[in-house]
């Protein structure tokens, strides 16, 4: 049921007197119909209705003076119009500011244009219709913010990626699954779009090179992330002296081929911490969905630019050594673009380890629909105070970017606390 309210016909109008009902109970009204005449300081005004439906009940009597916003009648929208209710209600409030001199017809037109009409170019609309894209979810970059062909096509590309993730197929970076022999420009593009199962007319004019395809996949995923995910950021300095000593000790007993890198320890520590703070091992799709398996995506940067995120499945049930073996297997193949789809899908959280470079810490961008990304910086020697003593220790800055829709800073903080605990007791991993 929709309430028909006494409209404000100018900022200075406080109330109005109903002079005459033009419609009676049981009448069908449509948008733009004159429902009543109201006396205001500015004279006798015909009031239009902005709802469609049948008048259920007239709530005030002729001659009655009521403040702006008072319900005057109840309108029962037909089934089909029920959806539009909220919109029309808000529209009614908008009407308040209309100068009364304006023609009723114009008001309806103008308001409906502003409220409902989506500005999109004809071809953008056509493509959206063909591909089933909801234009209200697309941001326009064209003239006066109109949605253009490129805007829709970008969404199609993203959508292809998301739906794959949902189906447990390969996520964005899967582009690289293609055998390197096939990565010549032409077949690669064909593969790319075949995988998305949506014949996209985009970019047919020029084939993408593998590097470009990866770049655009990264661009799409990261744009979506930045657009949709409200990130919060936390940072924790972790003393690595025990962890580094443990690695050194362990490596002494290991053949070169099996030597551990700090990355393996980080992954294991993250996995163990997720066991304790399970809210971060999750995806956000129509709400928070916790995941049972802890599958850790590990960002591998490509020498040619772009990143690939192979997954270490069930990292919590693997030992540090086993994780290192997985890395030894995955990283070279990732760099050669020779991963299998199963090695690129189903990750439930991502680790980025920029530590090798010159930057001390990295604030990650969450890979949707995941809800967190953990960043490990460079391990450097730092002055570190503990128990009233200052010492030079290997230190790493660990960051966490969390999806604030899914969790709060306190959750992330607990996680970093737990991570620190594990890194101070590496033998427990």
């Amino acid at each position: 049921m929709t309430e028909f309210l006494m409209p404000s016909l100018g900022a200075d109008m406080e109330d109005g007197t109903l002079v005459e009902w033009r419609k009676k109970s049981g009448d069908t009204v449509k948008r733009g119909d004159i429902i009543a005449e109201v006396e205001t300081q500015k004279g006798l005004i015909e009031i239009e209705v902005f709802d469609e439906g049948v008048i259920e009940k007239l709530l005030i009597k002729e001659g009655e003076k009521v403040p702006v916003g008072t319900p005057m009648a109840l309108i029962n929208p037909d089934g089909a119009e029920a959806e539009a209710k909220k919109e029309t209600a808000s529209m009614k409030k908008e009407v308040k500011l209309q100068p009364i001199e304006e023609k009723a017809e114009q008001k309806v037109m103008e308001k409906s244009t502003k409220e409902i009409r989506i500005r999109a170019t004809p071809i953008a609309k056509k493509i959206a219709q063909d591909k089933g894209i909801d234009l209200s979810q697309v941001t326009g970059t064209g003239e006066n913010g109109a949605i253009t062909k490129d805007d829709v096509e970008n969404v199609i590309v993203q959508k292809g990626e998301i739906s794959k993730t949902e189906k447990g197929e390969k996520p964005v970076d899967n582009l690289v699954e293609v055998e390197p022999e096939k990565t010549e420009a032409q077949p690669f593009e064909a593969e790319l779009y075949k995988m998305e199962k949506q014949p996209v007319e985009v970019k047919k004019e020029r084939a993408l090179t593998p590097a470009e395809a990866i770049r655009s996949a990264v661009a799409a995923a990261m744009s979506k992330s930045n657009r949709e995910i409200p990130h919060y950021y936390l940072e924790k300095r972790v003393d690595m002296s025990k962890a580094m000593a443990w690695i050194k000790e362990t490596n002494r007993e290991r053949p070169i081929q099996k030597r551990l890198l700090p990355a393996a320890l980080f992954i294991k520590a993250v996995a163990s911490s997720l066991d304790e703070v399970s809210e971060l091992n999750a995806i956000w799709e129509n709400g928070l969905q916790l995941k049972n398996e802890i599958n850790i995506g590990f960002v591998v940067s490509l020498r040619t630019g772009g990143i690939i995120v192979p997954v270490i499945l069930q990292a919590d049930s693997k030992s540090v050594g086993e994780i290192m073996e997985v890395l030894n297997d995955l990283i070279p193949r990732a760099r050669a673009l020779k991963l299998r789809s199963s090695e690129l899908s189903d990750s439930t959280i991502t680790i980025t380890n920029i530590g090798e470079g010159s930057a001390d810490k990295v604030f990650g961008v969450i890979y949707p629909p995941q809800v967190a990304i953990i960043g490990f910086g460079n391990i450097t020697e730092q002055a570190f105070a503990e128990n009233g003593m200052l010492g030079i220790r290997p230190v790493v800055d660990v960051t966490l970017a969390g999806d604030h829709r899914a969790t709060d800073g306190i959750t992330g903080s607990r996680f970093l606390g737990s991570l620190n605990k594990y890194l101070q007791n590496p033998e427990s991993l």
Partner: protein
Amino acid sequence: MNEEEIKNIIFQLLKKIAPDTEPSALQPDENIREVLNIDSFDSLQFIVSLNEKLGIEIPEEDYGKISTLKSLINYLLAKLKSQLS
């Protein structure tokens, strides 16, 4: 094995890890990892492949002694010599 041969092996192995670079253009005193943009993972791979090729095991604590081309070659030459004797 002489210095030149070792150098060639080093170049060959580095090229495999960082195919987009030109290891032979390295200056003797340049930091190999920095110039060729090699991360710790690839660095470990390099050490593993040196081990496979030359039979030389480089312990972790010696990583600091092999950061430039010159120091790496000298390190390997010394190791080979001590193996012989």
